[in-house]
């Protein structure tokens, strides 16, 4: 009877030991996994940021924004304000497809600052200072300077008018 009791004790000891060993290795494993994948979220944010920076620098030259040859010769980093206003009206097709892969695109006039921060609408165009092509609810913005050109009727004569602006691309941080 005494021998049986001592055997049971031994089995109990072994079971506790095995559970402890399993728990120990499980915790070590979890720690390793955590260390291995802790950089993933950071990498995703860095890639989103890189994408937004490159997009801000190239967006002005993409067909939906670029001046092309509309204002004489071909221009670099030139945004066609008339075309962008037309894009604003048709932006749903682009936003539904997540066309640019960013959460927001905005064009802000810098100089001359005659219209302040007034948001551009069909009614007040071109007397406005800020055009929200794609409205961002939150995120980090990166910007690039551009020439903002449009056609303007001055005393019956259609002329090219270019102003200084910046294009702001907003991206969402990974995990937010």
């Amino acid at each position: 009877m005494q021998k049986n009791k001592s055997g049971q004790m031994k089995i109990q000891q072994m079971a506790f030991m095995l559970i402890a060993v399993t728990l120990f290795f499980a915790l070590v494993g979890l720690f390793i996994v955590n260390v291995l994948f802790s950089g993933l979220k950071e990498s995703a944010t860095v890639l989103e940021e890189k994408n937004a920076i490159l997009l801000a620098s190239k967006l002005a030259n993409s067909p939906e924004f670029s001046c092309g040859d509309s204002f004489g010769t071909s221009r670099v980093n030139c945004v066609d304000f008339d075309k962008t206003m037309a894009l604003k009206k048709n932006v749903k097709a682009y936003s539904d497809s997540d066309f640019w892969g960013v959460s927001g695109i905005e064009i802000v006039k810098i100089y001359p600052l005659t219209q302040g921060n007034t948001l551009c609408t069909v009614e007040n165009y071109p007397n406005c200072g800020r055009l929200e092509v794609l409205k961002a609810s939150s995120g980090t913005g990166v910007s690039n300077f551009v020439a903002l050109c449009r056609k303007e009727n001055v005393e019956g004569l259609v002329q090219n008018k270019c102003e200084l602006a910046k294009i702001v691309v907003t991206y969402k941080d990974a995990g937010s």
Partner: protein
Amino acid sequence: MKVKRGQLQLSFAWIFAIIVGAVILFIAIYAATKVIKTGDTAVSAKTGKEISVLLNPLETGFETGVVTLLTMPVETRIYNQCSTSGNFGKQIIKISQMSFGEWTETDLETVFSNKYIFSEGVEEGSNFIIFAKPFEFPFKVSDLIYLTSSDKKYCFFKPPREIKEELSDLNQESIFVKNGAESCPENTVKVCFGNGSGCDVNVDEFQKSVEKNTQNGSQIVYYETDSLMYAAIFSDKNTYECQVKRLMKRTSNLADLYDEKGALLAQQGCADSINLQSLANSANSIRDSQDLSNLNPVVNQLKAQNGFANCKLW
């Protein structure tokens, strides 16, 4: 009953320890395999996203004729997939890399709507050549991106002067340009312009078609503009046809934009009337590359109208 000497005696404690030990070992091995697989998937997804970011500068149109060399640390497969769903269709990239002598398998895809990559369905190697060329129809629609493994050699046989100059400017060891006097090296994809013998790809500049001789027979696709001709050479039929449809979707959307811009300019006193609705409708309803030739008269007419307009739309 007495137990014979020499007979294997296993106490309950030992049997219990062996069974539990085996279970623990099994769980540990299973977890380790899962962690390695997750790690591989993460690397593939990251690489896919990195490629998409790397392709961004190619879309400015100022990078024409410049080759970007994509060097991977290990042997890599780039799966180029395309879908025509949605307003602009989708460009899908999947990456598989060699790990412990096996190709990693992942379902993670990098998807973008504003890029057009022309390549074979699967490109394999550790070095890839990427270059871009703008596609105008009649306004600029996008920059087409050509991707090919540097292991795959192309030989352009008797190309026209402009193509010859353009290809020579790329300055790539994997792209040979030969005139009639020299023959193409062995183990190269021979691309013939006009007549030639033993050609893998035939470019008919009169019909504006590219015919590829594959194991499954010959496949023919049609093009307009040089940028689509390169696209047809470097990609397979499925990819090409799908990307052409996507390009036409974007052409249609851009035509709507220019139409809207025309209305805005009319308010400023620009009386030019360029009707883009016909292009917008026909580009959206294209069935395959053969229909491109039907659009060509409309495109040429619009190009001329815009050229003579007081207020150019593009």
